[in-house]
């Protein structure tokens, strides 16, 4: 089983991203689970969401304390949240930033993957909403979900031009981290 923790801010779609991971994994014929860290946080406050992917039905329902992967939608969270907490040493953390990874001051043995998702999202979506773009990066950096399944999940969720633009943003992010 692979466990993923997502960090974002209220209104940035972290829960939707977790949901899309679950749908994409299911498209890949795997079992999956996604849920928010339930809170009363309002727009702008730091929030978390979780996802699990496995070959068997998933029964465990606790939060995730030792994730294989961490997705950070907003680099400013590094100052207020221990985003790498419990991250497995052989895991990966994907961070939306244009800063070089050595300047992030992250305390982890895991691989750090940076991507300027905000710029990609502004170019492709016209808005700095990076939840889907970061999924492209997750897909490219980990291979835990397939691009095809992710694209299908996106089109189920977003219709029309918004869906197509999200696919473009995902593809750009996917290619950047795959290079």
């Amino acid at each position, binding site marked *: 089983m692979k466990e993923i923790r997502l960090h974002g801010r*209220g209104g940035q779609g972290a829960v939707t991203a977790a949901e899309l991971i679950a749908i994409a994994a299911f498209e890949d014929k795997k079992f999956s689970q996604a849920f928010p860290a339930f809170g*009363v*946080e*309002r*727009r*702008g*406050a730091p929030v978390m969401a979780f996802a699990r992917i496995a070959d068997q039905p998933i029964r465990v329902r606790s939060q995730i304390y030792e994730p294989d992967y961490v997705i950070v939608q907003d680099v400013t969270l590094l100052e207020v949240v221990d985003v790498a907490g419990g991250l497995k040493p052989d895991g990966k953390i994907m961070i939306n930033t244009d800063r070089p990874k050595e300047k992030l001051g992250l305390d982890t043995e895991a691989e750090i993957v940076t991507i300027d998702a905000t710029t990609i999202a502004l170019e492709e979506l016209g808005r700095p909403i990076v939840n889907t773009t970061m999924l492209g990066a997750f897909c490219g950096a980990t291979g835990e979900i397939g691009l095809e399944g992710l694209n299908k999940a996106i089109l189920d969720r977003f219709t029309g031009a918004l869906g197509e633009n999200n696919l473009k943003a995902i593809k750009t992010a996917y290619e950047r981290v795959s290079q």
Partner: protein
Amino acid sequence: MQESLFAPGHRACAGCGMPIAIKLVLDAAGPNTIVASPTGCLEVTSTPFPESSWKVPWIHSLFENPASVASGIEIALKKFGRTDINLLVIAGDGSTFDIGIGSISGMFDRGHNITYICYDNEAYMNTGGQRSGSTPFYASTTTTPIGTQSPGNLVRKKDMPAIAVAHGAPYVATASIAYPVDLRRKVKRSLEIKGPAYIQINAPCITGWSYAEGDTIELAKLVVETCICPLYEYVNGELVGVKKVRNKRPVEDYLKTQGRYKHLFHVEGGEEYIANIQAIADRNAEKFGLLD
């Protein structure tokens, strides 16, 4: 200006209208005040244990009972001879218009010396925007959604101030966060008049109404300038004052800025719905004499 009695660090959404209302109410009431509040956005955003934004004594009990809790505070204070303390209920519209209306009726009926403030954002916003008795016509909420069989909410907004007037409450007023001087004056006046008072404050909700960041005060002005939300005050059942609207705007100016009314501009019959809202605004203008 004195330091606010509602401390920062509360967890309301960025751009929320409610804390602006609370700040203004507390400015007017001053530190010699006790507040009772129901469950709702105000409660969960201002009192996450072990913290509190309140610099005046404050109590929460349940969703349906702040008027009864405040009634108890009032009679206890009376027993102790402390009749100089301002006593407020500050509640949202779900609690006020729906689940708590029985307690409010009792509070009015018994004639307690309490000012009941309703910050009105026109739906159950704390739980994610479901229809309340305050939701206006055609607003899309999560329990009156748009669909092939539904153009949004099909029940008129309950006239809560009229219900307060009908109870014989000696002071009843509506106010808006966009007019802070008027709002503070009304709170002060309610506290000077003995007996139960009801003040309903229009307070936009950025997530529930779905509008652009920073537009909170702009919308609070528009709802008054379109005459959808008339600002008035009743003393002993008599209409004693209204805020005049100098330049009446068409309701579209207000509706088009909000996601909850977006469908009115493209669904079949939308024009008729908008005309119905305009008719409500026009009736308000006439009934309260809002125009010169």
